[in-house]
């Protein structure tokens, strides 16, 4: 019970999608194949990337800061894409023997 929480692992997803108005040939290709699949009623398809990752950080704000940095610098090209960060949960690791 003396354990001290030293780091928590936070899990995130970064969703990167083509910006509004940017050509999305993959989305169009999905739409064009809908009739072949016998699917009606589906539209506005946009295809992007989803990156899931884990961050070791002292707190949630610090963790999100790192992810935001990564998203801005690497995962997303702001000229053509936009991103959103999604928190997926956290696992704490504690110092001290757990269960002896």
């Amino acid at each position: 019970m003396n354990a001290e929480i030293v780091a928590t692992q936070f899990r995130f997803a970064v969703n990167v999608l083509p910006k509004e108005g940017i050509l999305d040939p993959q989305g169009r290709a999905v739409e064009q194949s809908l009739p072949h699949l016998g699917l009606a009623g589906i539209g506005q398809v946009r295809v992007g990337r989803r990156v899931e990752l884990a961050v070791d950080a002292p707190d949630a704000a610090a963790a999100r800061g790192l992810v935001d940095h990564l998203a801005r610098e690497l995962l997303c090209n702001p000229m053509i894409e936009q991103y959103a960060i999604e928190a997926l949960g956290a696992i704490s690791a504690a110092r001290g023997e757990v269960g002896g």
Partner: protein
Amino acid sequence: MSIRVGVVVFPGSNCDADTAWALSRAGAEPVELWHEHADLGGVAAVVLPGGFAYGDYLRAGVIARFSPVMRAVAGYAADGGIVLGICNGFQVLAEAGLLPGALLRNRSLRFVCRDVAIRAERVDTFFTHRVAERGVLRMPVAHGEGCYYADEATLDALERDGRVLFRYVDDDGNPARVEDRENPNGSLRAIAGVMNAAGNVAGLMPHPERAADALLGSDDGMLVLRSLVESAAARVTTMAAGTGR
């Protein structure tokens, strides 16, 4: 005096040897610039070759942008150094913000390897002064993400400032429309190559180094590479004069 031209090698570059070979045919002494070194070794120009730097995972060229050599290239470019990006090298320069616009996936969603015709829109640049002899050049493209994109305002500005360097053209020499076969990737305004505002950094999707030997189908690419090497030589001479050496 031999003109030393640097060829950047990222892990995954695969046109580095071809580019060095073609540059030496154009009269330069090619020098390998390893991605982990932030030192360009005093070269007279830098070429970023084609390939799949860092696997081109995520987006072509994006991971390469963070390598130490790119810090050096950015500084070199800011000082007026001559930099040319070919295919993947163009993608890297665009991702690094050294050139305007972005290179999206080809509209066909397929990799495309074929000969294209490109017209030099400027024949008074470091990269094209030799091209005046020919006008329309034939050379291969080979890429999956080469669809040039920028917003309308940027495109207008590029046109106005004369920064569109090459365009894909049809048999009559007219810019190929987005849906034409002659525009291999669906680039906006048929743009195949652009320059930065200062005119010392350029990128193009077609491969001049693959058109450096008539045996392989065309040597039109030599006009681009010779332009670059001669410009580099001239710059070395000027700088030497400027520093009084």
